[in-house]
């Protein structure tokens, strides 16, 4: 006879499902005591009761109003559990379940499991210091403040009253002999422990205390079980996953495979219209579970991921339901990328060389005034991002975050310079994903080689220098989070390979440990004189460092020698 496990069911909606589940328990011989919330209309309740009246193994406990987080649920549980112990003598374990719980494994398996552990209480029960899942910042205070107001209906009063008590330093005295514990509301206790709790001579005192504790259904039995139980196994036999607001995740038809592999006795909570689940587990629970290897970890992962998606989101994604305030992006962009300034000016064919060496996608000047210079001269790129400068300049930061998001999985590199749209500077500077390498003053090289009217060149040079100088201020700001490297042109030209090697080393595994091929530097013969001419015209070029008039860099005068690198 398997009447040794009694089921207490707390029901407040979807009564037809509760009826189905109650019959399922009964079919295995388990007595059932049902508590129906007083909020359910009398007529509905009467019909429900009548429908189950043919079965003497189903009893109804007196109805009470159960509001979330209040004492009502505990009182209802006490009454129903009391009735169970009273009327069904053969019951050794009482299992607390809700109307939206669904037994996954065949009931006899549960009965056998409990019969083999006659002295064990299955109740999740931990001290407040050790649990991470409290919502609203109330953990220890649940037990030391008073909570006369409803969190759901009287939120303002609730918050206000908590605040007042905190301010005046009010603290309740916890009754002697009690150590507050909390845990899942859904437990399975032995007759011995449960009756000891219900028949405790100090029950009135404890009740008075717990009536004003917040969410007592997660702490009353959990605390008192610690007092009486011989053998507590601190876990719930009911699979129940909570989201970040502390409300349970709901299971739907498409979770069927997942639940099959869960290896749990009972799951909650089930969407009342999940016909396939009810059909699968209530009509043929043996068949439903047996076909698959248990893999309970998978459920954990899926729901943990859902919570993370809700609270942390996907870094670098800006969309209709994720638009973080500045500073809360949790990653300004999706993946690391590199910005090069002054390299194309100094090296011939730098972009091609970089792409060949690193395997990254190397763009031209993405923020050039005329158009977006995508790699390969494309007009549109991943995500149908267009090369229109107007579109880019409408929201430069969105352009960049879109590009990085659309191409995630592939390293992006692009060129930048003082001719480009400077509005993006602040965004990339505070982005830890950005690797910014700047050779200052290199913008002078194209001017030097352009052979145009010197008066124009002078004006241009002055303008570009001003812009780059302002940019450098931003890059050097204390709030900069990007990996910024700045060389002036003179020092870079002195020893170009070492910085290049460092930059590429950071680009990741794609970059080789040794450079087989070095980019070819442009011919700088006469550059010192060019700078001197600018000086003579009253313009002071200083960002490129010191280039003596007659001392042209030696290495540049001997072209086409293959450079060797010694490490």
């Amino acid at each position, binding site marked *: 006879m398997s009447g040794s496990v009694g089921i207490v069911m707390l029901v407040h909606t979807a009564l037809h499902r509760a009826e189905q589940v109650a019959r399922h328990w009964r079919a295995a011989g388990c007595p059932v005591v049902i508590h129906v919330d007083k909020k359910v209309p009398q007529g509905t309740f009467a019909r429900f009761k009548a429908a189950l009246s043919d079965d003497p193994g189903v009893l109804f406990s007196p109805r009470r109003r159960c509001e979330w987080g209040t004492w009502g649920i505990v009182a209802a549980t006490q009454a129903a559990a009391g009735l169970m112990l009273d009327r069904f003598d053969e019951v050794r374990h009482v299992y607390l379940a809700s109307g939206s719980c669904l037994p996954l494994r065949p009931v006899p398996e549960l009965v056998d499991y409990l019969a083999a552990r006659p002295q064990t209480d299955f109740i999740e029960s931990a001290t407040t210091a050790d649990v991470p899942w409290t919502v609203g910042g109330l953990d220890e205070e649940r037990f030391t403040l008073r909570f006369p107001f409803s969190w759901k209906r009287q939120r303002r009063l609730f918050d206000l009253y908590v605040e007042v008590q905190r301010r005046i330093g009010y603290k309740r005295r916890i009754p002697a002999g009690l150590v507050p514990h909390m845990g899942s509301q859904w437990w399975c206790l032995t007759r011995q422990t449960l009756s000891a709790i219900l028949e405790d001579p100090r029950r009135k005192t404890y009740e008075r205390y717990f009536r004003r504790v917040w969410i007592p259904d997660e702490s009353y039995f959990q605390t008192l079980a610690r007092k009486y139980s011989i053998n507590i196994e601190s876990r719930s036999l009911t699979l129940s996953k909570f*989201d*970040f*607001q502390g*409300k349970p*995740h*709901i299971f*739907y*038809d*498409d979770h069927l495979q997942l639940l099959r592999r869960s290896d749990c006795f009972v799951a909650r909570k089930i*969407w009342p*219209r999940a016909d396939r689940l009810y059909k699968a587990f209530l009509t043929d629970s043996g068949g439903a579970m047996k076909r698959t290897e248990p893999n309970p970890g998978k459920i954990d992962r*899926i*729901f943990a*991921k*859902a*919570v993370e*998606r*809700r*609270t*942390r*989101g*996907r870094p670098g*994604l*800006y*969309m*209709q*339901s*994720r*638009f*973080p*305030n500045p500073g*809360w*992006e*949790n990653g300004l962009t999706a993946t690391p990328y590199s910005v090069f300034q002054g390299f194309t000016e100094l090296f011939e064919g730098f972009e091609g060389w970089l792409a060949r060496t690193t395997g990254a996608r190397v763009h031209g000047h993405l923020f050039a005034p005329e158009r977006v210079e995508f790699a390969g001269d*494309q007009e*549109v*790129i*991943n*995500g*149908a*991002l*267009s090369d*229109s400068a*107007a*579109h880019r300049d*409408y*929201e430069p930061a*969105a352009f960049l975050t*879109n590009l990085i*998001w*659309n191409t995630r999985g592939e390293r992006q590199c692009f060129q930048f310079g003082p001719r480009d749209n400077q509005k993006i500077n602040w965004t990339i500077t505070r982005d830890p994903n950005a690797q910014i390498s700047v050779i200052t003053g290199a913008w002078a090289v194209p001017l030097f080689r352009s052979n145009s009217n010197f008066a124009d060149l002078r004006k241009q040079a002055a303008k570009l220098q001003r812009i780059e100088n302002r940019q450098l201020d931003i890059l050097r700001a204390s709030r900069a989070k990007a990996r910024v490297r700045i060389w002036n042109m003179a020092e870079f030209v002195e020893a170009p390979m070492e910085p290049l090697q460092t930059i590429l080393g950071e680009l990741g595994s794609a970059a080789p440990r040794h450079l087989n091929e070095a980019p070819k530097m442009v011919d700088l013969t006469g550059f010192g004189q060019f700078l001197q001419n600018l000086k003579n015209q009253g313009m002071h070029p200083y960002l490129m460092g010191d280039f003596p008039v007659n001392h042209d860099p030696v290495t540049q005068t001997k072209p086409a020698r293959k450079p060797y690198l010694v490490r």
Partner: protein
Amino acid sequence: MGVWQTYRLRLQRQRWQIRAFRKRRDLSPVIDRTGAIRRDDILLFCTQRNERIRLPFFLKYYRDLGVNHFLIVDNHSSDGSVDYLRDQEDVSLWHTAAGYKRARFGVDWLNWLQRKHGHRHWCLTVDPDEFLIYPFCDTRPLRALTDWLDASSIKSFSAMLLDMYPKGRLDAQPYKEGQDPFEIARWFDSGNYTLKKNKRYGNLWIQGGPRSRVFFPGTPAKAPALNKIPLVKWDRKYTYVSSTHMLLPRGLNQTYDEWGGEKASGVLLHAKFLDTFSAKAAEELDRKQHYAASVEYRAYTESLKDDPDLWCKWSEKYINWRQLEILGLMSKGNWA
């Protein structure tokens, strides 16, 4: 937000309500089956004009999702759509010959119907060419979503407009009645959208997509708004402000997370770009009943002369909601 601003928004909300109340006189019932609406029914609100060819698939799509009743305003159609809709058992139909523009693009009419019939119902407000996609929509009915939103105390659900287009000429494959429009228009832009926050109403303003890319190449600021909040647990105090882009009270527009997380959201697949589009654009330009002096339609007819291909090498082919989720166009949030 200061008290003064709150007060002004309240005044504005009341103004839209009064306006909706006055505009109720535009509407004359063709067939009113609203008596059949039950307490928990999900309602769909829609205005339409000469969309006869689209209606069968539209109604079927939303019936399959689990919409219980359709409340439709017909803006003086002449293509037999009135007769068709009248015969549908789950449709209540109103007719009006008044100006679409004067009714603020239909918002006043629907605000009135929502106020009268939508109170305490989940209300879906869409055009006949908009099709709602939400997380798990292939395995869970709309009711699963609304139940979950209820349980999470969420009152409004955003679904951004995603313009779908065919590959090649718009008129290459004619749309047939009852056909799934996304068999033809099955491509979309996945990653060229910009977002801005509207400080006043608290909503996001989303632009981009193929319309911005092709029709507004030099003037992205003029491209149409794509943010939409079509699914709302209605209360008679609520009003839509401008199309379904934003609502008052402004708390309903807070469908996005500002602290790094993602809220759940969906997508409205927009089946605008079919062979029917050129005729529609010409007609609408003629009627001058659209937003901002129909600047949008002017841009369309201008570009349509050269018969543009909205499709490009990086267009994405639609597969399912999971694809849209991975691309970051919508999110499951914490629904699992």
